[in-house]
């Protein structure tokens, strides 16, 4: 794949600007105001006309949330002021399936991000969430005919209450952690995806998350069910304006991969550097199913995200491929968790991280092989690149093995860009700064090649710009 074109070589941009940092005038039709209380939760539930079990669930989750302390491990959450955040904002009255019907500010936002263009080119369906709710949604007609469901979670709950009730919070209960509880109590938006038996969705479905208001909290809730023998590729992208006040993004994602099905979930996380990103993601895989998490963490102030896979059926396979990039004042605490429960399951974790200008990247992972998961194999590899003396890299992998007939391999390396390799490129007339860029592109290549081309170009471009900033 051509990931480095000559135009880039000749003209490295000199200044870095977060392309998505613009903000639009804040207009909303409803906001719960700052802070969180029982009343806020009841208001959200009432506004959405939810069944009573959901309100009960929200309130239980809220009680649990209040009883738990902020975690003291991982990223520094001392500056996260939960009382100064707005938990729910409704941006428009109606959801539409045409960009033209959206309010001007919102349409302009997505135009600038390039979502409608991407939709025309290579997506099978798009859902766009602005503040708390999904404002735009559309899917190819053929897929609808095949019975594919792709809608926002609120509509999912209204239209398919039985399915939602049967699966909702069974993988990530509110008691999982403080932020899962927070999400469970104030969740709004997110995607509900159901792929019927044997249906292959060839082009990706994409959800686009945008926060516009300052000091806002976005709590989307996603549920993906891939029935027997089906396939879907789901992509999420996230951006936000640059503000001085911190925002919070705390999502819960639950994925059910049934027998012989395959789900690929790609995240391109590019929040602005004033967003705390605290996310719980989990998938359960049945017999011969395949789950793949592809996780790119570039933005946010602090991220804590450990996509998990439960390999529950025989011969199930799980993969987590991740890239983390930390610049100034950023801390990416990302990783993966894999539980081998059934026999002959296999998994692979590949993690790459780059720290520069005082940024900090942490890989925190766990691989467990339960007794009875015979013939299982797990392979973990984490590589970290440190670009200067101010930055920091940590690796905390964990392996628990309860089964004799299993193979577990783990390896990790941390290093800087090797001088010899830079010299080699410089000898061939490539400037040092470009050589560094090339080196980094090569470093992340194994993961970038798994991402749809449109995103990988964007990703390379983004890192290129960041690096040129670094070299200057």
């Amino acid at each position, binding site marked *: 794949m051509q990931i480095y074109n000559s135009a880039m070589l000749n003209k490295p941009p000199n200044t870095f600007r977060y392309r998505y940092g613009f903000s639009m005038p804040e207009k909303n039709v409803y906001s719960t105001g700052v802070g969180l209380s029982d009343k806020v939760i009841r208001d959200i539930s009432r506004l959405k006309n939810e069944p009573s079990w959901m309100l009960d669930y929200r309130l239980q989750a809220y009680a649990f949330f209040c009883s738990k302390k902020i975690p003291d491990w991982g990223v520094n959450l001392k500056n996260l002021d939960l009382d100064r955040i707005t938990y729910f904002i409704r941006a428009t009255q109606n959801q539409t399936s045409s960009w033209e019907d959206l309010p001007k500010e919102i349409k302009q936002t997505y135009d600038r991000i390039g979502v409608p263009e991407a939709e025309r080119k290579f997506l099978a369906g798009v859902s766009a969430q602005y503040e708390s709710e999904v404002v735009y949604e559309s899917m190819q007609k053929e897929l609808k005919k095949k019975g594919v469901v792709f809608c926002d979670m609120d509509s999912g709950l209204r239209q398919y209450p039985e399915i939602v009730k049967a699966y909702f919070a069974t993988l990530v209960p509110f008691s999982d952690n403080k932020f899962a509880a927070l999400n469970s109590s104030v969740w709004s938006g997110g995607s509900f995806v159901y792929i019927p038996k044997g249906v292959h969705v060839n082009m990706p479905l994409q959800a686009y998350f945008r926060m516009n208001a300052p000091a806002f909290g976005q709590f989307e809730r996603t549920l993906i069910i891939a029935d027997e023998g089906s396939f879907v590729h789901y992509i999420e992208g996230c951006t936000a304006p640059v503000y001085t006040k911190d925002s919070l993004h705390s999502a819960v994602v639950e994925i059910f991969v049934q027998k012989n099905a395959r789900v690929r979930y790609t995240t391109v996380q590019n929040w602005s550097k004033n967003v705390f990103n605290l996310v719980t993601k989990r998938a359960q895989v049945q017999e011969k199913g395949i789950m793949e998490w592809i996780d790119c963490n570039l933005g946010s102030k602090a991220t804590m995200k450990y996509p998990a896979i439960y390999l529950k059926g025989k011969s199930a396979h799980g993969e987590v491929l991740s890239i983390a990039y930390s610049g100034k004042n950023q801390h990416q605490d990302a990783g993966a968790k894999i539980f081998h429960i059934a026999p002959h399951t296999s998994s692979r974790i590949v993690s790459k991280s780059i720290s520069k200008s005082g940024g900090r990247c942490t890989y925190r992972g766990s691989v467990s092989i339960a007794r009875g998961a015979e013939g299982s194999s797990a392979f973990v590899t984490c590589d970290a690149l440190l670009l200067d003396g101010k930055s*920091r890299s940590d690796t905390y992998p964990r392996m628990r093995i309860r089964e004799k007939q299993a193979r577990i391999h783990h390896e990790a390396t941390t290093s800087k860009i090797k001088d010899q390799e830079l010299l080699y490129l410089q000898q061939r007339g490539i400037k040092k700064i470009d050589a560094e860029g090339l080196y980094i592109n090569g470093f992340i290549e194994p993961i970038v090649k798994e991402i749809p081309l449109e995103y990988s170009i964007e990703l390379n471009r983004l890192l290129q710009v960041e690096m040129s900033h670094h070299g200057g």
Partner: protein
Amino acid sequence: MNTTFLHLEDTIRKKIVLKKKGVYIIFFHNLSGNLVCEIKASRVDLTVVGLYTGNKMQEFTLTTTQHHFSPFSRSRLLIKGIFDGMSKFKYSGRIRIEKKAKGTHASQKNQNLVISENTLVDTEPCLEIMSDDVFCTHSATTIQPERDSLFYFASKGIKEKKAQKLILRGFIEELFEFFPPLLHNKQIIKLKNSVLTRYD
């Protein structure tokens, strides 16, 4: 360069501070405990080798730390274990490299061979690196004797039991090869032979 050999026999000493350049070798067999090596001098070449041969109800818990404070030193760590019966092994290893420790080369390796159904192996390595001009690696494997190797032996007319013994022998001998060749310590050779006879 001075070579210092340290065979920990009863307990693992809590903290070892290396303040002079030289070659240091630490060896222990079937010991639980917490070993902290602080490297506070340049041109230290530290090798830590640990062997575990667990069987029956034996339980081992080991924590190691390779803590680099000074530039241009090297540390290597190899822990090998064979676990039989109901034995348990919990290992957590840490490499920490402070900002000043430029040009460090640190590695950590843990290899476990599991030969019984009822064993339990937990490994929890971690790397904490605050300096950029370093090279650190770490790897851990937990497997049972490979079917391919057993098959290879079988194809040469060697029965499975014998083949397994040979594999274990090779696994242990590899560990002793990790010592620098100049170290011909009688004690070590004796120990090696006694461990090897256990699997004969």
